[in-house]
């Protein structure tokens, strides 16, 4: 039993931190607010070169063959930097989705293209009514010649406007099925949904009798339920890692500020009202760390509690990040409420991820189902 990072993992974390400190400064994040694409090609190319884009993929598909602990380390650093770009959408939603359910041909085509920086991907996992249970999917698919036609409305699809391929769950007569859809196909409308985190892009994706070929299906018709559930678990844990990083940044900024900001003739960090709040923030960040890396390990190792650990992770980190980021604004006072101060970049990153891939209550219900059925 060893709950600590290996030397290689520490090395990876440090190199990601160094690269993002250099190339993803707050000025870069802000510059992307108004950028039509919302991310920089230079940094994307750099990430391909550094091997981040293929980190969890098998080596035969151009990946590094690493696990979800390593991917979580990268995403924690991206949260810490409020990285603007489709890394999570491409590598987690698209890449891990293909790894879970894709055919060899699909993996050969897409995973190597993603790893080399040539292709971007995402997944459309939620609809109008925000039910994260894959069984609630209402988008439909019909057989049409050698292919299919898909219709439905997907919302909050991350980075769909720059994706080359979107994983789309839809209901066929056999049950839930999963398809690869080119968002530039006829019948697909991608419209921006602008949230408070301007460094993240969401889209509404409307599919009106979109024709896809016979090779577009992931797995067999009616077999997508477990694949989508497994993907959601990974998305829940990996988004938690990103939230953890954002929360850590908020905590670090608060502690630094509390050391130098003076009121009543003393640094405010000397007052228990502030110090105790910072101590509580650290406790939540440390607990969130344990929840994220335990779940990332459990998913990688195929541990028997991997599913419930994923729900524990997301529900815990959702609330922990809410507390840490919210308290950070309070510790800062007025300056934390200004646009020019960077705190809101990280607070908004965490807030944006909180309701995605299962909100707190969704996951708590899953935890209780697990606990009451396993006894």
């Amino acid at each position: 039993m060893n709950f600590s990072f290996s030397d290689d993992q520490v090395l990876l974390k440090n190199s990601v931190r160094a690269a993002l400190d250099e190339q993803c400064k707050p000025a870069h994040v802000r510059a992307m607010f108004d950028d039509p694409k919302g991310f920089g090609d230079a940094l994307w190319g750099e990430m391909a070169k550094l091997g981040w884009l293929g980190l969890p993929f098998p080596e035969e598909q151009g990946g590094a063959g690493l696990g979800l602990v390593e991917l979580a380390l990268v995403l924690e650093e991206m949260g810490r930097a409020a990285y603007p770009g489709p890394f999570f959408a491409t590598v987690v939603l698209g890449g891990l989705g293909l790894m879970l359910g894709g055919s060899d041909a699909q993996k050969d085509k897409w995973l190597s293209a993603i790893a080399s920086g040539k292709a971007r991907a995402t997944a459309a996992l939620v609809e109008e009514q925000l039910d994260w249970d894959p069984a609630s999917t209402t988008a439909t698919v019909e057989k049409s010649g050698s292919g299919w036609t898909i219709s439905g409305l997907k919302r909050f699809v991350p980075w769909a406007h720059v994706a080359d391929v979107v994983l789309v769950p839809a209901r066929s007569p056999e049950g839930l099925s999963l398809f690869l859809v080119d968002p530039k196909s006829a019948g697909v409308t991608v419209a921006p949904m602008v949230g408070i985190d301007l460094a993240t892009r969401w889209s509404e994706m409307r599919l009106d009798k979109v024709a896809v070929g016979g090779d577009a299906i992931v797995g067999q018709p009616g077999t997508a339920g477990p694949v989508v559930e497994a993907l959601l678990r990974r998305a829940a844990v990996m988004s938690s890692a990103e939230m953890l990083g954002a929360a850590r940044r908020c905590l670090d900024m608060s502690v630094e500020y509390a050391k130098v900001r003076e009121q009543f003739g003393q640094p405010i960090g000397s007052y228990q009202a502030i110090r105790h709040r910072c101590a509580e923030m650290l406790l939540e960040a440390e607990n969130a760390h344990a929840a994220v890396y335990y779940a990332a390990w459990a998913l990688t190792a195929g541990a028997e509690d991997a599913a419930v650990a994923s729900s524990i992770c997301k529900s815990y980190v959702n609330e922990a990040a809410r507390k840490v980021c919210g308290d950070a604004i309070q510790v800062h006072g007025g300056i934390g409420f200004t646009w020019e101060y960077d705190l809101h970049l990280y607070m908004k990153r965490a807030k944006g991820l909180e309701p995605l891939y299962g909100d707190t209550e969704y996951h708590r219900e899953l935890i209780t189902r697990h606990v009451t059925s396993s006894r």
Partner: protein
Amino acid sequence: MDLNYTPEDIAFRKQVRTWLEQNLPKTDIRTLDDRLAWHRKLFGAGYLGMGWPKQYGGGGARPMEQAIVADEMARVNAPAPTNGLGLGIVGPTIVVHGTDAQKRRYLKKILSAEELWCQLYSEPNAGSDLAALRTSAVDEGDHFVVNGQKIWTSAGAIADFGLLLARTDTKVAKHKGISCFLMNMRQPGVDVRPLKQITGSSEFCEVFMTNARVEKADQIGKLGEGWAIAQTTLGYERGGRALARVTNYASQHGKLTEVAKRMRRHGKPLIEDPLVRQKLGRIWAEIEVERYQALRTLTLLERGEHPGAGGSLTKLSYSELEKRYMELALEILGPYGQLTQGAPKDLQLEIDTAVGERGSWAYAYLWSRAGTIYAGSSEIQKNVIGERILGLPKESRADRVGGKA
């Protein structure tokens, strides 16, 4: 990162489990003699003082093996050994800071429970501000003479010896004038009176010392080092007990789930109430996060590192969780949760609490209020975390004015 237990640890766990199946007392432990008999059985099996040096009766075991024994005991709800403070605080203090003579004189008899121990730290006017303690120890040539009053002394009523903090120098800053001693409790100058708590029971005592005698040979460390020694002792037992604590919480959660299936509201079982399901799911997440953190701490201990101020995070986390948990338990149990007598068998809780007394849900609920006060209140832990982990500036305090601290 590999959170699987090693084959050796799995084999060891199996061995402990088998031993417990064969040796766990079949009848309730009621008297101190019962408890002592169980304690000696555990000692005979090598499950006490596992991490202490072998030449003084310890087992020289790894932290993981100690954690596994505690965890397996929790799993079958085994009674705790007696002499908890001797094992948890006094013994480790002697191991780290004691002389060879002190180790040979005391350690073995702590393990065998031939001598029972208490801890003489808090005073009526020195609680969170422990360094303000006023009990004095005056050098009389070949011995010290102790005068003062201690409070919140657990196991004081049965203790043969106490680990004492007393002031030996009133002229220096308050933290620097404190020394640490081992004091014989069985002497005329020591008067022990039970202190009745909100639980109705008396695990704690007040101790009055009037010209009590402490031998020179029973001084621990150098004069004036008492505060530093006390700082290191507070965190000794936190890592090893953490897994076992989580196992206790988990078994209580199982009982609460069963209760929630039987109780009804608006004609439906409580377990079908989404709000109850949310609360049970939330607390389970918190319990599991404690378990993950216990594994992190064990990783440190296995590498021979000490959690240091990180122990304050651990203590703050579990003691505050325990309060939230017990409030939820009493919500689900309704008035059944408050019963101290007459509870139907299937709605009772039989657990070992912090001091090893068996109790009810009501008792466990009331006890949960103690955890955020003893051994450094939550507020003190947050001060430690703020100053020593986050590096926040110290507050300006009246007792620090004039460079006295």
